[in-house]
């Protein structure tokens, strides 16, 4: 299997060419830096994304911005969005990086606040 991957680590957008099976990478070229090489490998074997969204705050009109603390497996993204859409935060104030949803969809990854609520 061969995949052409555009690196998204930085705005350069290097075109990485990866070959291998679904278990291992046999050849990787075109990356511009170490982080790009890691990205190319991961993107080929198991793509992940940082998920950002918003959650409701009880008694407030404005939403609280949230993110996954670590990148989440791509195939879990829409399931995570369902959980996030259901969530209303009640415990205020909220500081940046407070955990809003722990271990979302059993991914081992927390959803944390990126903005604050007084």
């Amino acid at each position, binding site marked *: 299997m061969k995949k052409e991957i555009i690196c998204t680590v930085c705005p350069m957008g290097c075109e990485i060419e990866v070959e291998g099976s679904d278990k291992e990478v046999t050849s990787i070229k075109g990356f511009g830096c170490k982080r790009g090489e890691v990205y190319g490998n991961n993107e080929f074997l198991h793509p992940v994304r940082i998920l950002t969204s918003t959650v409701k705050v009880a008694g407030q009109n404005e939403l609280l911005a949230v993110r996954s603390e670590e990148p989440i497996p791509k195939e879990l993204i829409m399931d995570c*969005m369902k959980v996030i859409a259901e969530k209303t935060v009640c415990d205020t104030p909220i500081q940046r990086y407070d955990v809003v949803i722990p271990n979302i969809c059993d991914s081992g990854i927390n959803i944390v606040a990126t903005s604050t609520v007084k």
Partner: protein
Amino acid sequence: MYEVKCDVAIIGGGPAGLSAAVAAKKEGAKDVLVIERDNSIGGILQQCIHPGFGLSYFKKELTGPEYAGRFAEEALNLGVDVLLNTMVLDFAPERKEIICASSENGMTKVTAKSIVLAMGCRERTRPNIQIPGTRPAGVYTAGSAQRLVNRQNTMVGKNVVILGSGDIGMIMARRMSLEGAKVLAVVEIMDYLAGLTRNKVQCLDDFGIPLKLGHTITRIVGNERVEGVYVAQVDENKKPIKETEEFIECDTLLLSVGLLPENELTRKAEISISRITNGPEVDQYMQTSSPGVFASGNVVHVNDLVDNVTVESMQAGKYAALYAMDKMPGEVREVTSLTGNNVRYLCPQRLRIGNEEKAKLFFRVLQPDANVRLVAKCGDEVIASVKEKRVNPGEICCIQIPMDKVGDDVLVEVVKEA
């Protein structure tokens, strides 16, 4: 009238204003005041909840609220004062007086020793690009849709077409998809992407959203609500080809068709404005044609990355502080920066030759190209040159020049590497 006195007054509390405020304080300015029309500081970054900010400045991938939050906290910790819900109506550049309307204090007069303009930019709208058709509900600029969805908990539509492949448009394509809407197409009149490549990968390709390059919207259809749009391919003169026209049924059209620096105040103050950037012309201290009035960020030229806004705003804040303390560097003479092959504009437009060692020139290219060399010349002498793998109109380029080598006007060009 409520009156406030300060050393450095900054108009706008977005990333540019906050970075300038932090730098002004660090340079030693005593009273630094940020004037913000919204009910909180942070500017547009507050609604940019997606990641991708700070990679070059913080060496870390942050979301908009995190990036803005860091600067907001740093500014407040350094003792920067903020006037919220306060709209600047007018300012006198020589007297350094700013007249504002505040919901709390009523009419307010701010008197400063130097001023930083950091008003940012706003989106081009449907009237700006004159799309034919009816005028139904459901046509939004991408940024106003972003504010509604991300801050005000209001979903703007279910079946969406996006005009323009700018970053905000692509990011909204992903956001709308995550929130359950169907994005039917992103339509771009140019034959290349307007925004960053990584946004196409993460926002369009991930969700299987078709990108129609070399296409435009020829008509909006709908009575009360948008019912659909006609999309057609364009020829080499960007004129739609009638035979290629197709109808896409949708209820919402988002426009991501460019940004305009917000310079009503600057124009009223008769500060000289570049016809290309639509922002004030500045020198390398980010000083406008009016001494002691500085400007930075998207009000000067629309940037690709907030990290670049921060860097140039810190320059503006630093020199605004020095001006307020009467410590501006001595000036010998001034030269102009000139655009050469494949350079749309340069910022700064003027260079003051004093005792500084180097200056950075930022610019955008006209056409995408690969394997090129960015060259700065004085007459026939090359004073700086950098190799670049790729250049793209969507991304800002930068070249650093040694000031001691600057003779006459500096010409910057992008030439094909032999």
